[in-house]
């Protein structure tokens, strides 16, 4: 049994280790009056990036994207760190699920 645990631990460090990346390119994003500012962000292709989303509204919002598979609830006045990618070049939409009629944005991924 101890051997199994040791292997499991080794596997975990391997999996987590590959995810550790010191200083990722970071992009700040605001939610205000149920809209994103900016509504368009340009990020590099093939790299993991960090999105920091500030919810400046008083009510909760859910940052969501089907295109790049992310989903996180952000309470009013709070911020959330969301790791994205690596993505291929292209246009990826995201939205605020709780106010999808106004909260729409797009991630432009460029080579």
């Amino acid at each position, binding site marked *: 049994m101890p051997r199994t645990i040791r292997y499991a631990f080794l596997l975990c460090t391997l999996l987590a280790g590959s995810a550790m990346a010191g200083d990722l390119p970071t992009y700040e994003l605001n939610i205000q009056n149920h809209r994103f500012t900016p509504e368009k962000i340009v990020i590099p292709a093939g790299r993991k990036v960090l999105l920091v989303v500030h919810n400046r509204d008083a009510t909760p*919002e859910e940052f969501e994207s*089907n295109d790049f*598979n992310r989903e996180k609830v952000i309470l009013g006045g709070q911020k959330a760190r969301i790791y994205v990618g690596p993505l291929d070049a292209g246009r990826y939409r995201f939205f605020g699920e*709780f106010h999808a009629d106004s909260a729409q944005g797009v991630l432009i991924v460029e080579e």
Partner: protein
Amino acid sequence: MLAVALLVFREVLEAALIVGVVGAATRGVSGRGRWLSFGLVAGLAGALLVAWGAGAIADAFEGSGQEIFNAAVLLAAVLMIGWHVVWMSVHGRDLAQRMRAVGHAVHTGTRPLYLLAVVVALAVLREGSEVALFLYGMAAGGAHGIATGLLLGLASGTILGLVLYAGLVRIPMKRFFALTNGLLILLASGLAASAARYLAQANLLSTGGGALWDTSWLLSDGSLLGQTLHVLVGYQARPTAMMLAFYVVTAVALAVSAHHVARRAARASTA
């Protein structure tokens, strides 16, 4: 009102589909109504608790609390479903025979019921807490028609869950548990893949690179069919290698252990 109905519908649908499969998978087991209702009620209570504590959960683990919480809930459901699937692979045939013989529900002990009651509770907890936070925001923002929207979304989502259930219980008894077991394995594998996605979102797990393929032109994750298949069989338009690995490992592990345990039980009964 329509925006409320639409969001509530989407969240309720996810839970209702899981409850539909679980309800079907416990067909003919006496006492299941009570256990599944218990799961529903516990899930609703849990959802309110999670919504209330959302701030504390989000702040935990240096801001990764929400992802870790979601991944833990998903993996707990995978574990419960896995346990049930293995149990059913031994007892399913016997159960089907006894049910056909007596023509009504039979006693099997509580094990297949409490495992799936927990799965129901976890599904309701996850989706319900989102609905609660959303409705809270809507109410605070002074939106109108919240109650109507809630009822409309709740009713339409529940109806689709019932339709799925009604469809599943039409499957002939002879193949019934083999099929629901297969469906449960795929459902659990999809949940495991979602757990991998949450962990990658918090940078706790590698994605294993970019998306392996993109079938969003054919069926998008946001569409009703895409979302339904996402819940039932783990459909993803753009899966990463890590998500696929979680999916395949879960599917293979459950199928192999169910098969293995069933064979050993068959040998033991003939010996």
